């Protein structure tokens, strides 16, 4: 059936040969329009932020897209870094540590959990556990009770506390990705490892975990973006002067720099850089990860 369809399609295409030139021209016209639209809609905001981050205070106050009368690249960026006793550097340290620690913890626990949930699918208790995981994707966390629990454990306002929170809140998404991918690993692998004398723990760490690498790298990239850009959780669970993350710094600078838009924009550029660099290196991985996570099929 499919063979006969494709031959008749090529027949139909040559019949419409004459209409091809105008179709091609139309496609390029639409392409040009979409290029123009994408520039207006997506690039102008970036250009606006970038150009204003190198202006002086009075130029930036115009909020225009005009070319700067003089460039203040070094002054602006250095003053942002120095503001409030180098708070931004402290915040970068906190944000990077938080991202690395929470993603590390998340991968360590959710890979094993996702694998076991998949292998025990249909068993007693597994549907309840799956329900608990799914619920976590939908139901927003209860904030003040979480603070109460953190306080009880002496973890409120600590890096360890916010790390555990980020790992807990991103667990459902990671577990579901791991679970879906585990289904593609044949059980024969497990069985042959068992026959060779592997226990469950060794089976997972020396055989299964390396095979899960594609999901692991997807989760590293996607969740790094989420955790690094997170504003809400640090706002609630990691308050205090020495505890700022980069997103909180930006938020605090919003009131501090109300008359110096140039510095505010320089801050925006600085804190966007890490994720833009990540994007340049992992562009393909991000997109494949988004799709793997979203279309469960």
């Amino acid at each position, binding site marked *: 059936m499919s063979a006969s369809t494709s031959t008749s399609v090529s027949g139909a295409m040559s019949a419409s040969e004459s209409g091809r030139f105008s179709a091609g021209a139309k496609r390029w016209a639409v392409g040009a329009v979409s290029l123009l639209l994408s520039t207006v809609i997506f690039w102008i905001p970036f250009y606006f932020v970038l150009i204003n981050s190198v202006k002086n205070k009075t130029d930036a106050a115009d909020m*225009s897209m005009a070319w700067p009368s003089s460039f203040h690249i070094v002054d602006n960026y250095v003053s942002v870094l120095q503001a409030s006793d180098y708070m931004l550097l402290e915040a970068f340290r906190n944000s990077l540590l938080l991202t690395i620690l929470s993603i590390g913890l998340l991968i360590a626990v959710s890979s094993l959990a996702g694998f076991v949930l998949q292998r025990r699918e249909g068993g007693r208790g597994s549907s309840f556990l799956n329900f608990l995981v799914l619920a976590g994707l939908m139901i927003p966390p209860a904030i003040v009770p979480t603070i109460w629990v953190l306080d009880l454990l002496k973890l409120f306002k600590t890096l360890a506390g916010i790390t555990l929170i980020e790992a807990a809140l991103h667990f459902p998404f990671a577990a579901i990705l791991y679970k879906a991918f585990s289904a593609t690993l044949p059980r024969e692998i497990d069985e042959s490892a068992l026959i060779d004398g592997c226990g469950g723990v060794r089976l997972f760490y020396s055989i299964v975990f390396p095979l899960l690498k594609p999901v692991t790298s997807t989760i590293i990239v996607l969740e790094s973006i989420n955790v690094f850009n997170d504003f809400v959780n640090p706002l609630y669970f990691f308050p205090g002067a020495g505890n700022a993350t980069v997103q909180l710094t930006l938020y605090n600078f919003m009131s501090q720099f109300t008359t110096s838009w140039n510095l505010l924009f320089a801050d925006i550029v600085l804190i966007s850089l890490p994720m833009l660099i990540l994007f340049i290196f992992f562009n393909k991985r991000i997109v494949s990860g988004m799709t793997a996570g979203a279309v469960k099929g």
Partner: protein
Amino acid sequence: MIRLTVKTYSYWFLLPAFLIYFVFYLLPTVLSLFFSMTRWTLTDWDFIGFDNYRTFFSETSLNIGFRNTLIYAVVTCVFKVVLGLFLGAYLSSRVPFKNYLRSVVFFPTLLSTIAVGIAFSMMMHPSQGIINTSLAAIGITGPDWLGNTKIALLSVAFVDVWKGVGIATVIYIAGISAISPEYYEALKIDGGSARNAFWNITVPLSRPAMNSVIILSFIGGLRSFDLIWAMTKGGPGFTTDLIASIIYKQYQAGFYGLATAGNVILFIGVSLLAFPLYKYLARSEVHL
């Protein structure tokens, strides 16, 4: 073999994950049912029954959030579903600059919501912002996007769509690429147009992708907080307050019991709307 399976895939392996998940997510969620019925100082509490809920439902400044949250979630969801579909279908076809356009649409997703919010509040400044100065150049007097009580909520929703449509587009691209090309070939033989191909093949067969976009963006909209906080802080007045921003305000003011009641209302609301929607969408998918 059964015993072996049980031992190999021991439920003990779930312990580390579920311990963290239980202590920092499930337990607080269950506790919130109790604490929402207290007057609470974190160290001490009085049980007051449903008083917090009564306050929440009777004070306009608190319950305005219900309407706003629903409007915000529906508006952002509809725009992401529709724009994402057209962008996804367009960027799945043979288009010049395809890879470049895909990257550009996805780009805003990488930015922090706070940064996006700050940049757009400047661009939406009523007299100096570039949106209104550009409109003025072609003779249109733009509104005060964030200061006008009638449109402020929609302005923020628009920025949300700007930032989030990339994810919707990528999901659609994945869904559309999974459609077998044979359907399009068959349609071509029957003399169908590109329009037919879009409405009769692409739209119905990308339903799984569409359902993911609907659920993700609807739940995201209901829970939304950071963008509204960066752009309007719930103002002018309370006209752009969402349930999540009201919870934050009550928390800041030290009304912990009331904030927790807001949390419980939010998660009951999300469950009542999202679970049936999820079930309905799953049932109505096209089966081949």
